[in-house]
């Protein structure tokens, strides 16, 4: 295993982190885990309920074990992670667990693009500077106009416009890197 600087891991794409994880980089795995903890947590919370923490542990343990199976030519890292998370959560549903899915193979079908984007988005928002993320969440999730955001944050309207533009452009660039 080759230790790598944390700064490099933070700039890496999800696909690069998965490939480094496959090669045994614990730093890459830690960065990947930090990015996707929230997204995986939501799936586990929905499926496993009170067993959420155990479910998350199992999902990331499986990602660590299965990372060598990831092939970026066959799809995005977010899509692969979503599939692993969903399969694992369904198969570790605790006492009220439904039957294990028949199509257990990870690569049977790709998840829908919109679902992958939504799963990826949870992780990507966490990579934005705080102000950019805050403005975007207020605009989209609280449906606030830019002037209302400026009022709430007590900052000039121009700053809100700038943070929103930067944040959206940063998200689009991150998405482009994952698709590359």
């Amino acid at each position, binding site marked *: 295993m080759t230790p790598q600087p944390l700064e490099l891991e933070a700039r890496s794409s999800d696909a690069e982190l998965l490939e480094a994880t496959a090669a045994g980089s614990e730093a890459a795995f830690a960065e990947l885990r930090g990015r996707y903890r929230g997204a995986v947590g939501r799936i586990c919370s929905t499926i496993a309920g009170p067993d959420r923490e155990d479910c998350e542990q199992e999902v990331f343990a499986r990602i660590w074990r299965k990372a060598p199976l990831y092939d970026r030519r066959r799809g995005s890292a977010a899509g692969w992670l979503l*599939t692993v998370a*969903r399969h694992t959560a369904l198969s570790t549903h605790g006492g009220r667990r439904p039957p294990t899915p028949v*199509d257990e193979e990870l690569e*049977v079908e790709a998840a829908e693009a919109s679902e992958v*984007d939504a799963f990826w988005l949870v992780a990507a928002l966490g990579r934005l500077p705080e102000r950019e993320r805050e403005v975007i969440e207020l605009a989209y999730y609280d449906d606030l106009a830019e002037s209302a955001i400026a009022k709430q944050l007590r900052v000039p309207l121009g700053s809100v416009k700038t943070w929103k*533009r930067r944040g*959206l*452009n940063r998200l689009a660039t991150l*998405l482009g890197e994952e698709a590359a």
Partner: protein
Amino acid sequence: MTHEEAFRRLPDLLDDRDDAALLAHVRECADCQRQLFLLGRVDRALRGSAPARRRRRRPWPLFAGAAAAVAAAAAAFAVLLPSGTSAHTMMLRTASGRVVGEATMRHADTRNVSLSLSAHGLPVVRGHVFVLWASDKGSTMEVGRFMADPTGKAQVRFNLPATHAWSHLWVTRAGDAHAMVASSV
């Protein structure tokens, strides 16, 4: 307008802002067109996840009291009315995420919830018989059996007791309760 300036302002186009100079640049610039395409995907993902995220975010302080009162009233109904008085729809997906059905639950009377299942593209094998299951936080029940046509299509109705907050549905093959075909989560 420089490329850098246009690239920086591309998100404005998501808000339908009519900027002739910006649009003129985008028409001639492949990089900006690609970025605008990616911005569109980001915008759709944000809008798509907005309803769920709105539920998780705290209400405004000004309305917190009123919101809490409304939530308490809703919770009182939710004890026996798992989906309120309106219809509640769950999508059924295969483990890989493909949608193969839609289940809508609504009240039939004070004791029963009517469940209407519209399935399509179920993976049919010999017999084409499936079993629909439901669970709440503490119990699981077999809702009923149904047949799909050779293309995997089915339209069926069942009744469930209204005394449970049914939150999870799934479909298995008949004769093999561990062979899950689709699930609502």
